[in-house]
């Protein structure tokens, strides 16, 4: 069988598959809905860097000085209140006692409480530090973390301002010098590309790779096991067609489908979620194709191992789930414990995601993603070498 016949057969099989697909309205709609749904869902449920606003916070002022409420605590409270007016992080309300504040947190009415102790003013006036106690809700660690860190920085800022004025007043230095004396070091954060990446920008590259790679890994076994069950596969197998043409044709059809879906993700990301592609668009397309290549072998192996549609989907579930969560599509792998990072590094999707993210977010060129590209090529080739004999064997039961 010559190459021309082989290619012609596979193109006709691919043509058939795509024709069927294009006439399936439900599938066409799903082509759009699936990525949209995934992006909406994952984009909105995961912590996206947006801070929680309007956290209910009790302020318990126990400070007393010379028989009345201490002046320092009143200043503290009014400064906190006026900063909060600008930022809107909290909704402040007075509470009379610490016990009340605790009860309110336990009931879920408050996220936390700021308690100004009784000796606040007297400490400050006698040259000691004025303590502020903060209570927080331990049942919501993520929110408590935000609450305490915001309070920390707000209160630290208030302290700095106070110190600057004190220096200014006592030494007679001007305000700028006073600031430099109080906070001699100043950090300025800058990314390597302009703009401020949002969570979609973090997620979209991984999503794109995932959709495309899974389309081959799952689409291939599904397409073939479906035909087996329908009986039509016998027609193809009984024809004088090379086994290689069959698998190639099916792969072409699934790849085209995967790329269309990948492009849909890309377009949605750009126009609906405001993602900018900083790298060359051709490199993006190249990575999509490479992702497909690296998963073809896996798809063929599953097809060969699975006797029917049900077994095939079970296999796919087992493989898909770890990849979905461990490949850094939704969470950076650096956040995982060290042993999980090793697992992540064994998954091809990790490299595909990392490469795509570098290109999309950081504007990386081909030279910057050589390692990832090499890993994907090796992975894809090795799996193909394993899978093709398996497929040939499976087809002649």
């Amino acid at each position, binding site marked *: *069988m010559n190459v021309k*016949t082989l290619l*012609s*057969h596979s193109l*006709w*099989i691919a043509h*058939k598959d795509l*024709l*069927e697909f294009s*006439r*399936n309205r439900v599938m066409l709609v799903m082509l759009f809905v699936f990525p949209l749904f995934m992006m909406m869902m994952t984009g909105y449920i995961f912590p996206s860097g947006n801070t929680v606003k309007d956290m209910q916070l009790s302020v318990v002022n126990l400070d007393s000085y010379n028989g009345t409420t201490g002046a320092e605590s009143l200043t503290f409270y009014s400064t906190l209140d006026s900063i909060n007016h600008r930022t809107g992080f909290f909704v402040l309300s007075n509470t009379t006692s610490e016990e009340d504040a605790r009860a309110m947190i336990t009931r879920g009415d408050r996220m936390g409480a700021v308690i100004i102790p009784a000796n606040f003013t007297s400490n400050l006036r006698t040259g000691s530090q004025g303590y502020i106690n903060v209570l927080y809700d331990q049942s919501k660690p993520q929110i408590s973390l935000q609450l305490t860190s915001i309070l920390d920085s707000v209160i630290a800022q208030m302290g700095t301002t106070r110190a600057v004025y004190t220096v200014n007043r006592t030494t007679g230095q001007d305000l700028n010098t006073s600031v430099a004396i109080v906070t001699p070091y100043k950090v300025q954060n800058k990314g390597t590309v302009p703009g401020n990446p949002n969570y979609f920008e973090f997620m979209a590259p991984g999503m794109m790779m995932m959709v495309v790679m899974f389309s081959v890994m799952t689409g291939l076994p599904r397409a073939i*096991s479906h035909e*087996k*069950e*329908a*009986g*039509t*596969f*016998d*027609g*193809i*197998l*009984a*024809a*004088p*067609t090379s086994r290689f043409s069959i698998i190639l044709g099916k792969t072409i059809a699934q790849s085209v489908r995967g790329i269309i879906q990948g492009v849909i993700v890309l377009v949605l990301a750009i126009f609906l979620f405001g993602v900018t592609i900083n790298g060359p668009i051709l490199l993006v397309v190249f990575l999509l194709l490479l992702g497909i290549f690296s998963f073809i072998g896996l798809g063929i192996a599953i097809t060969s191992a699975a*006797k*029917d549609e049900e077994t095939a989907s079970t296999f796919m579930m087992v493989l898909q789930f770890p990849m979905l969560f461990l490949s850094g599509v939704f969470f950076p792998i650096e956040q995982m414990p060290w042993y999980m990072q090793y697992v992540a590094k064994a998954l091809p999707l990790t490299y595909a995601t990392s490469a795509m993210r570098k290109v999309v977010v950081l504007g990386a060129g081909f030279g910057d993603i050589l390692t990832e590209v090499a890993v994907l090529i090796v992975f894809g080739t090795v799996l193909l070498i394993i899978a093709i004999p398996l497929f040939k064997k499976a*087809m*002649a*039961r």
Partner: protein
Amino acid sequence: MAAPIANRIIETRGLTKRFDGFTAVDHVNIYVNEGEIYGLLGPNGAGKSTLIRMLTTLSNPSEGAATIAGFDLVRDAQRVRETVGIVSEKMIMYDRLTAYENLRLFGKLYNVPKKEMDDRIEELLKIVNMTKWADEQIGKFSTGMKQRINVIRPLVSMPRIVFMDEPTLGLDPQSTADIRDLIKRLNERDGLTIVLTTHIMNEADVLCDRIGLIDKGKIAAEGSPSELKGRIAERGNTVVELDVVDAPVDAAQRLRAVEGVKSVAQKENCVKVIVSREDAFQDIVDAAGKAGLRLRNASISLPSLEDVFLHFTGRAMVDEVKDKVPSGGGGHGPWRAPKQRGR
């Protein structure tokens, strides 16, 4: 009696298929002459489909060999595929493709030249009166219409042999007649060799030049329908047919008690008795009277294929779906739960 070797377009030698210890096809030796319609007749689960799957290269034999048009089934599988066509029990067609697109796809896979493709498709569609449906999606067709396309589908590549697995299964009487007529015409017009499986006696009788009776994976007898029926008569068996008005429930039981009676089968108003004596007619009629059967007519009839099957396998051929054992059908492994066939 046997045809000259040169004419044997299919010949199997000890062809066997085993699935995990279960033997679906057991050392089958059959031959098919070029240009004839050969029927594999047997109950569901007899191994007909598995045999066809092996002969169309869809399943590798566990043992034995076969030549098809001179090509070895395993070694020259690709040449065998070029020579044969298959009409499977499950229709080999894509619902979302039009009739024309379905036929063209398989034409392409069989390397039919571009120039001839459209002419052939047009001609085949004309034969089955489906020309005006050429550009409609198959999914919109009735079962009968689908089967007409399904039967002409392998013909686009002009094979020398077509295997048909239960080509009339699940069709209404009109479509069944149409398909049988088509099979006959293709055979007569083009000299196409056709191997079909069926579990319907009548179908085998009217269509086939030669028949292989298959039961439990083994060929029980092989020959033309008249030859096979003749063999019953040769051995001194008589078939007595009683046309009755009504029959008590235990009538069959009482008839069995008559000396030499091998079987009694009742189908509506007709009771058939096979007796191993040639002089038993009077005894049967007498016994029938005693049993309370009210006779309208009684005669010695020619043996039917049903009688032949009963004679050679020792059991009546009944279409019991629950008897269906794994046939490896569908190409996905040997053991699967017995399924109701797609009717």
